[in-house]
Structure formats: structure tokens, C-alpha cells
């Protein structure tokens, strides 16, 4: 891939620049988590819109979507969401890995867009109308629901809106939908045990000593 050199960091093409922007956003999340106070005071609740997480929730339990507030998606929207999630996050080893939808990523997205917080509420119309659109678009192109399409047909629609290649003007709203949906799907997936394994996170496991970097990691960085 394109790598900016430390001598001329500005000499990167647009595609690389977009990639870097993404990584910088992720880096900001790392900064928030690791280094002192969050820059943002946290999601703002919408009073009266549902039960909030509150100031003193029970921490030592597992929460399920729908437990704190009611969910939004219709059965048809859920079916479309499942198909899109599994298109975005296909299993690396279909024989052993579960589908992202089997891990309940659609339930998380539903929980998110239904939550009584301003940032979540802002996602709700984007996700709901986007799922309606994707079924309608499947109907226009193939006279089927999105979930009923074959892989190539699904890709034909997704390629038009995913932003990997320039997106046509008429699909700008759908591009925004796809970006938010992918972001929520990825956040939902990579925070599950399978997603963590998939991305290569092997922490959260007790050990007697902190072993530090492996010889391979040191070599990778030119430190061995």
C-alpha cells in the first residue's frame, strides 16, 4: 500500500489520504481510551425518550438489546440489515466462523438507533430509510428483496454506494447510509469475542507477567 515517507508526508494520493483519515479517527478513539479525559463529555440523553443507562447501572451483568429501551426495526428491515451485515463482514473461515448476523450485530444496530441519546437518534433516520431504500432498489433492479439477491447482485448495489469508487450524485444519501451502517456493523462485530479474534486482539486474558513484545514484533519494528 501507499506509505507516506517521513521526509515528505504530503506526498500521498487522495485514496491514501482517505485511508489515513480513517486511521486517525481510530487513533483518536485510542487516545480517548488510554489518555485521560475524553474530549467529548459523552452522549447527550434525550429526556423522556426512554430509559437511560443512568449514573449507577449494574456493571457486572450482560445486557441484551431491547432490555433498556424498545427496538425500532421492522421484520423486513431486519432481514435487509442481516443481509447487508453479512455482505460487509463475511466470515474468513465459513466452516468454523459464525456469520456476523449470527452474533447479533443487527440486534446491536437496532439497539443503537433506538437509544435515547442524541448521536444515536441522529443515526436512526439514516439507517431506517437506508434499509428501506436498499430493498426498494433491489426491487427496481432485480424484482426481489435485497436479502433474496445473489452475491453478485448485492455487490452491484453495494458497489454503487460504498464509496470505494467515486459515488454518483444520485447516491450521495445512500453513501452516507452505507458509511454509518458499516461503522455500526464493524463496531458491533469487532467487539464480540469472534470479532476480537478476527482483528487480532488477544488481550483481556490474565497472565502472571506482562511478557512485552515478542521477538517477531520487535523485528517487525526494526528493534531486534
Amino acid at each position: 500500500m501507499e506509505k507516506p515517507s517521513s521526509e515528505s508526508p504530503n506526498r500521498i494520493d487522495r485514496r491514501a489520504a482517505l485511508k489515513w483519515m480513517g486511521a486517525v479517527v481510530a487513533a483518536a478513539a485510542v487516545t480517548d481510551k488510554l489518555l485521560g479525559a475524553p474530549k467529548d463529555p459523552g452522549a447527550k440523553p434525550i429526556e423522556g425518550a426512554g430509559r437511560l443507562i443512568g449514573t449507577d447501572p449494574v456493571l457486572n451483568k450482560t445486557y441484551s438489546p431491547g432490555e433498556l429501551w424498545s427496538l425500532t426495526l421492522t421484520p423486513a428491515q431486519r432481514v435487509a440489515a442481516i443481509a447487508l451485515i453479512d455482505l460487509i463482514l463475511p466470515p474468513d473461515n465459513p466452516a468454523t466462523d459464525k456469520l456476523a448476523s449470527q452474533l447479533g450485530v443487527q440486534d446491536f444496530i437496532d439497539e443503537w438507533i433506538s437509544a435515547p441519546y442524541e448521536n444515536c437518534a441522529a443515526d436512526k433516520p439514516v439507517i431506517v430509510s437506508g434499509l428501506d431504500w436498499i430493498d426498494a432498489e433491489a426491487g427496481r433492479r432485480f424484482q426481489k428483496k435485497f436479502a433474496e439477491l445473489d452475491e453478485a447482485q448485492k455487490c452491484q448495489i453495494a458497489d454503487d454506494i460504498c464509496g470505494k469508487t467515486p459515488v454518483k450524485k444520485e447516491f450521495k444519501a445512500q453513501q452516507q447510509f452505507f458509511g454509518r451502517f458499516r461503522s455500526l456493523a464493524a463496531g458491533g462485530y469487532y467487539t464480540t469475542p469472534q470479532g476480537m479474534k478476527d482483528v487480532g486482539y488477544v488481550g483481556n486474558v490474565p497472565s502472571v507477567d506482562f511478557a512485552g513484545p515478542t521477538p517477531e514484533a520487535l523485528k517487525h519494528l526494526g528493534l531486534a
Partner: protein
Amino acid sequence: MAIISEKDLQPIYDVIVVGSGAGGGQSAYTLTMNGVKVLMLEAGRNYDPVTETPMFQIPSQMPLRGMSTRQKPFGFADATVDGGWEVPNEPYTQASEDPKTHFKWWRPRMLGGRTNHWGRISLRNGPYDFKPYSRDGLGFDWPISYEDVAPYYDKVEMLVGVYGSNEGLENTPDSPNGTLLPAPKARAGELFVKKHIAKHGLPVIPIHRAVLSTRQDHVNFPPRLHPGNPKAQKILAKAMQERAACFWATDCGRGCAIKANYQSTTVHLPPALATGNLDILCNAHAREVTLGADGKANGVIYIDKATGQERAVKARAVILAASSGETARIMLNSKSSRFPDGIANGSGLVGKYIMDTVGGRLGGSVPAFENLPVHNEEGAGNHVYIPWWLYKEAGKLGFARGYHIEFGTGRRMPGMGTGGASPGYGKSYKEEVRQKYGAGIGFSGRGEMIPNKDSFCEIDPTTKDKWGIPVLRFHWKWSDHELKQAQHMEQTFHMIIETIGGKPAKMSKTKEEAIEAPGSIIHEVGGALMGADRAKSVTNQWNQCWEVPNLLLNDGSAFCSNADKNPTLTIMALAWRASDHLIEEMRKGNL
């Protein structure tokens, strides 16, 4: 004695301690280990990290994947209970509508206070940090020197357990041999930064944090900490044996069920309770300190939050350790004919010269970190840091005081930011997510703010909280020293990220944008300065109020400067020192 309810209150105590965090916990510990009968008042609920901490929970078990909300600003799993920059029923106000003058006031309402979630960074103030005025003519000198406090830093480090190393660097004190626990190994990205920025003169060294990297020496430490006090030694030896060493897996900010890190609730309070000399009353919100006819403090009026009733308790001495803002508020609300402007406030200085730490930040991504061979990088929060390295350049920088740098790298627990921004979908998308995961870096500066007369709090003339107690109103102004320092931080981080071949995020356009909002860093200190001159300070060098010597301020309120070193270790050292002195004075009958 134990965690009690109101009906079990004794008619009078030797000492009432208001607050249960670093200052209150240390005060109660020192006093009760020496036979003093103490009542601790805590405004929040009882809290037990052993049973309540979500040690291994992952985001998929939490609502909204653990998203940060106004009511849980550090995320769902953070230890803080009923706290944050906004606390229900407990408003505070700003004197001006200009957001630049606003102070964000963090308050927890739980046993142990903010020690339950803090970063555990435990740096000693150095010799320069106690005499800043003498060095550059700004701010105030402390009436004590590093040598006065050093023995107490030694004691606190042994008691709470601090990992780190001695590096012999300027104004970055070493600890006596055997005091610190071994520093954990640096992570791959930390070593990479160290290697590449050495040429710029920035040292990357082990940080000091209050986490047990090994179990404590429960045989030799107790006699060193409590010579000639076999009961205290025995209690402490047992308490130390009940703490496990860190297992390098979970986020310290959630609290620690195995007691490997320091929080007042796992380290100070259990041995203090074991002495039988401590009563703790929770949900007791202190309103004012009462004054006897003899001019001495003789008790505290508090609100029982369960019933809303006002209650009074009596003692021979009172220690306020409620957090510097809350301590100032209690003092200003403690009005009498003798002290119409608040107890021990004849100087008019209570609430004045409040400080936070100067914060700056910049993140970036580092291609060299991509596709790093998979290994466990979780560890225990910060392992290394960069102490202030430009003492010799002080006159040339355009700002007077220094900062240290904390930074984070590595393949840490995924969250909502993971993968969200890569383009496309399907196999190639997942491949790129894997490539980018762990390739971020984040830098934060923590710098010294110089106290100034425009940063203060006072009682709001109209606003009251749910219980009818007048609230604080804040005024704030950074001086150019802080603003320029924050800008210097950003420039330094930008330089470091470029030096390691990374791509920095966008920098701030102005120095006002570069600095984090006042109160963000939650290193709130000052408001009741310690000094050598009773006309120009609120307390003497023993944290005793000049005008009411049996009223002590054992939290950060007595700080007359706020070095770049995180304040908690110094709060504990001074609380121990002040409590030792209080015991002596009580024995002598001087109070």
C-alpha cells in the same frame, strides 16, 4: 466500628473526615492506625470494588458497546458511580456566559471518590516544584521543601504500591531502594518511539503507577511504616496479603476486584476499618463545619441524602478532604459571627487560585505499526512516559513551566472506533481493518498551570442544590503561559509522530483551541492555599487552617502550585504528614 447507619453514630469522635478519596482515605488510615477514633462522611453511596467491578466484561456485553454518555463520561464500565461533570440534583454555575471562562467540575458520589477510576499515575513533585516562585517569580512557593515531603512519599509508595524505576533525571526524584515495585516492560510501540525520538533529547522512561506489579513485601514494609506499633503492623501485613499482583489484563479505570491497583476502597479503608477505630457514614452530604464558642471547629452538619434531613455530628477536630472545590464550598458555606465570609476565611482567600492541569493532545497513525505480529499488548495502562526535558530552556520557550507526555499505542481492546472508517466492504475491507488495527498512537500533555487571581470559585448568590445548599460559581482564565504551553505540546506531538514516520491528525489553529477545557483533566487543586504567611494563605505547612487550627484541609485544596506531576500521590503524602502532626498536637493537648 464499620460502615454504619445513622443510628449507630457515636455522640462524639476524635476526628471527622469529610470525603473518602485519596486525602480522606489516607487521613483516616493514618489516624485510625494510631488509635484515633474517626468518623468518615461520604456524600455518595457505599461501593465495593471486589463485588462490583466488571473486570473481564467486553463491550458486546454492555449497552451500546460501552459508549460514553453524559452520565458515564468515561464509558459504561468505568468505575464512577453517580458522578461526572454533571451530577443530578447538584448544579454549579459559571460567572460569565463566555465558554472560555467556564470550569467543568468533575464530582464522583461514591465511597472512595475519584480514586476508584483515576489513572493511577503517581509521580513525585520534585525540589523545583515546591519552590516555583523562587525560580521564576510566578505563583507561590510552598512553605515546605521536597525534603520535608520525601519521607512521606516513601511511605505512601510502600503503602499503596507503586511500580516504576529510578532514572536520576532533573527534578524527577528517585525513590529509596526497595520502595518501588518493578516497572512493567515497555510495549512495542513505546520502544519504537523511544528509539526514534532519542535524537531530539526526549527521554522515554518507565512511568510510576499505583499498581502492584508484584505482591507487596508484607514482612518488611509494615514495621517500616508503623515502627513501634505492633497492632498497626499486624493489620497492615494482613491487608497487604489480601491484595493480589496485577494480572495484566483489564482496564484499571473500571476498578480492581483483586485489589492490585490502588483505590481508597481497597487499600486505605479496609485496614482502617480493621483497627476498629473507623465509622463510615455514606450518603451523608456535608454542608458546613460548625464552630464552638472557643473558636474551634467542633463538628459537621450534613444532609442525610436518604431522608433529606439535616444532622449534626461532633468531633474534637475536623478534616476536610471533599475535593478542593467541595472543600472550598463547605468552608464558604460555614458562616458564623466570627467568620461571616466562611470558616477560616479571614484572609478572603478561600476559593481563590483554583487550578487544573494544562492538557493538550494529538493522535496519529503509524504505518510501521501496521500488521504487527499478534501478541498481547494489554498490560496495565501506561507503562512509560516522557518527563519534562527542557528545564534548561525555561527562559526561551515563551512559557514558564513544564509538562510531561503520556502516550498510548498497541493492539488494545476493540471498541466502536474499530474498523469504522475503512472504505468498501467484504474481504478486502476486513483485511484493511486488520492492517490498521493497533496502528494508532495518541499523545497527551500534562502541564503545570500557574495559579492566577482570575481563576476562582465563590458561592452563587441564588442557586442552591436539591438540599438547599448554596452552590459554587466558577470564574476561569488561562494565562498566556498555559496557552503557549498547550500549543508547544501539540507541536511536539506533531514532531514525534512525523519522526516515527506517522501521519499526525490536524493541529489546532490557535493556542486557545490547543488547550483542553478547564476542568477536563480532573486535577482540580487549590482554593485554600498553604503558605508561610497567615495573611496570604489559608493553611500552614501542616494543612491546618491558620485561624482554626483543629480544621485541616487534607485534599488538593491546600496546593499552592500544580506541578505537571499528577497530584494524587502528593495529596496522599501531605495528608499522611498532616495527620501525623495532628496526632502529635492532640497528644500534646495543643488542640
